[in-house]
C-alpha cells in the first residue's frame, strides 16, 4: 500500500510537470487516495473488533463448558453460529465489507468447532477426514451465498487438509480432491477474487507435484515435468489466443514454471539418475530458470523472474552439494557456475540497455 502511494505521488508530480494533469486534478486524486486509506483503517479495525468479540464469546463458553448440560452446550454452539453469520449480514448490509468477511469467516470457523465439539460430545470416532470435508462444505456454502472470498479460502484450505489426510491413510493418489477443488475454484472465479485464484493454483500445483511422489509407489516425476511443460505451453498459447485474460496466463505460467522446476529437481534428487542423465537434467533445469528470468524481464512477469532467480540459486547449490569432490572438481564447478551467472548478467544488461533505448525513443 505504501509503495503504491509513493509511486502515485511520484507519477503525479511528473505528470503535473509535463502538463498532463492540472494542479486541481492532482489535488483531487490525492484526496481520493487519502479517503480510501481512511476507509481501509476503519475496515481493518472493525475486522479486528469482530474477531476479538468472537474470541471473547468462545472463551466464555469454553470456561463454562464443564458445568453446562448437554442441551445448554448445544444451544451455545448454535447461538454462536447464528450470531456470527447474522453479524456478517449486518456488516455487509451497512457496507462494512471487511468486518462482514471477518464475521462470515468466523461463522464458518465456529461451524468447524461445532463439528468437533459435537463429535466429542457424542463420542463420534469415525473417519476423521469426513468431518473435515463436512466443514469444507459448510465453508463453501457460506462463501458462495455470502460472496465472501476469505470464507472460500478457508474452504480451499480445508479441502487440501482433507485430501492430505485421506492420502496419508491410503498411499495412493486421492483423485476425489479435484471435485471440491474445482467447486471452490469456480467460486473464486465467480467472485473475481484474485488471492483465491492464487490459492487454487497453489493447491493444484501441490497436487500435481505430490502425484509424482505417490502415483504407483512414486518416482513419476517425468510425468510431473511433462505436465508442467504442457501448462507452460498452454499459458504461452493462451496469452496469444485470448489476450484479455493476460493476468490469468501470467499466473498459470508461474505455477507451470514451479511445477516443471520441482519435477526436474525430483528427477535429479528423488530418483537416482545416471551421471549422463543427471548432467542433462541439471542443464535443463538451469536452462529453465534462465528462460524464466528472461521471460520475467521481457514480459514484466515478476513471478517468473523471482522463480527463475530462486530456482537458479537452489539448483546451483544442489549441483554443488551433489558433485563436490565426486563428479567434477569443485573449481571446475565454480567456473561453470560463474560462466552461467555471467551469461545471465550479460543478458540482463542487454535487456536493460534495450529498454532504456526504447524509453528514450518514446
Amino acid at each position, binding site marked *: 500500500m505504501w509503495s503504491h502511494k509513493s509511486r502515485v505521488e511520484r507519477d503525479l508530480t511528473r505528470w503535473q510537470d509535463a502538463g498532463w494533469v492540472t494542479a486541481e486534478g492532482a489535488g483531487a486524486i490525492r484526496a481520493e487516495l487519502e479517503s480510501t486509506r481512511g476507509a481501509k483503517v476503519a475496515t481493518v479495525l472493525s475486522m479486528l473488533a469482530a474477531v476479538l468479540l468472537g474470541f471473547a464469546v468462545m472463551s466464555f463458553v469454553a470456561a463454562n463448558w464443564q458445568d453446562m448440560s*448437554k*442441551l445448554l452446550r448445544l444451544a451455545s454452539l448454535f447461538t454462536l453460529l*447464528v450470531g456470527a453469520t447474522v453479524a456478517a449480514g449486518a456488516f455487509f*448490509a451497512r457496507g462494512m465489507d471487511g468486518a462482514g*468477511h471477518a464475521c462470515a469467516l468466523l461463522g464458518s470457523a465456529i461451524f468447524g468447532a461445532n463439528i*468437533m465439539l*459435537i463429535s466429542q460430545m*457424542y*463420542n463420534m470416532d469415525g*473417519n476423521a477426514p469426513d468431518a473435515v470435508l463436512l466443514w469444507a462444505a459448510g465453508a463453501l456454502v457460506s462463501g458462495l451465498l455470502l460472496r465472501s472470498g476469505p470464507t472460500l479460502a478457508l474452504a480451499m484450505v480445508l479441502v487440501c487438509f482433507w485430501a492430505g489426510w485421506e492420502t496419508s491413510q491410503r498411499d495412493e493418489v486421492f483423485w476425489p480432491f479435484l471435485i471440491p477443488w474445482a467447486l471452490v475454484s469456480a467460486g473464486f472465479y465467480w467472485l473475481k477474487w484474485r488471492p483465491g485464484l492464487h490459492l487454487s493454483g497453489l493447491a493444484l500445483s501441490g497436487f500435481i507435484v505430490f502425484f509424482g511422489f505417490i502415483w504407483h509407489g512414486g518416482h513419476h516425476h517425468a510425468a510431473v515435468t511433462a505436465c508442467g511443460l504442457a501448462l507452460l505451453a498452454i499459458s504461452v498459447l493462451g496469452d496469444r489466443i485470448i489476450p484479455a485474460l493476460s493476468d490469468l496466463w501470467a499466473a498459470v505460467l508461474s505455477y507451470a514454471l514451479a511445477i516443471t522446476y520441482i519435477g526436474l529437481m525430483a528427477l535429479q534428487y528423488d530418483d537416482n539418475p545416471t551421471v549422463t542423465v543427471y548432467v542433462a537434467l541439471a542443464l535443463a533445469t538451469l536452462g529453465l530458470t534462465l528462460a524464466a528470468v528472461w521471460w520475467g524481464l521481457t514480459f514484466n512477469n515478476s513471478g517468473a523472474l523471482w522463480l527463475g532467480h530462486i530456482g537458479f540459486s537452489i539448483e546451483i547449490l544442489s549441483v554443488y552439494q551433489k558433485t563436490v569432490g565426486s563428479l567434477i572438481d569443485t573449481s571446475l564447478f565454480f567456473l561453470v557456475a560463474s560462466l552461467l551467472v555471467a551469461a545471465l548478467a550479460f543478458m540482463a544488461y542487454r535487456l536493460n540497455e534495450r529498454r532504456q533505448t526504447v524509453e528514450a525513443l518514446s
Partner: protein
Amino acid sequence: MSYNPTANVGISRRNLWIAVGLVIALQSAALIWMIVDRVMLLRSGKEVTVEVVPVDPRDIFRGEYVVLGYSFTGTGDTVMPAGTKRGDRVYSVLRRSRDEPKADGAPNVDAPSPNGGQTQGSKWVLVSVARSYPDKIEPGETVLSGIASDIWRNAEKAIDYGRIRYGIETYFVPEGKGRALEEMVRDKKIEAVLAVGATGQAAIKALMIDGKRVHEEPLF
C-alpha cells in the same frame, strides 16, 4: 479480471438476508443431522456388551479421553479379504467367545441383570471379515463395520493382513476422570456397551465397570 479486495458486490439487501438465512439453515442442518444420526443409533441400535482390553493412549487435538481396545481388534494380524486397501470399509462378523459358558447365542439379551452382574459373557472373537455386509448371520453373531488400516501382504502365503478401526476406540470422559478410567482399562475391569446399527455402525453407549454402568451420556 480486476482486483477485488472485498468481493462482496452486487448483492441486494433482501438477497443478502436470504443468503444469511440459508447459510445458517444449511450449516445447522448439517450439525443437527450429525446429532440425530447418532442419537437414532444410540436409541435403536442393538445393545452389545464387549470386553475392553488395554492400549496406549494417543491422539492429537482432542480433549480428555480414554483409548479403548477390544479382543476382536487384533494386533494387525487380522486376515483381510483379498484386495483390501487401506481406508476401505470392511464388515467384521463377531461371535461370543466359546470359553464363556453362558454364550448360548440368544440375541439382544446381554444387558446387565437387575443386581448389576453380567448374565452373558462379553468376550467376542472375530470370525471373519468381508468387503460387504454379510447376507446371513448366525444367531448370536454381531456385525460391525469398520475401516481397514495398516494393510500388509504376506507374499509367501498370498494373504493380506491388517487392522480394523470401528470408530469405538476412543471415549471422552469428564475432566479429571480420564486417568482413573485408563488405570481400570489396564486392569481389565471395563466393558463397553455398544449400540450397533443395521449396517454395522457402532457407537459407545456407556462404559461398565465391574458390571455396573458408569458414564452413560445423556442423549441431549
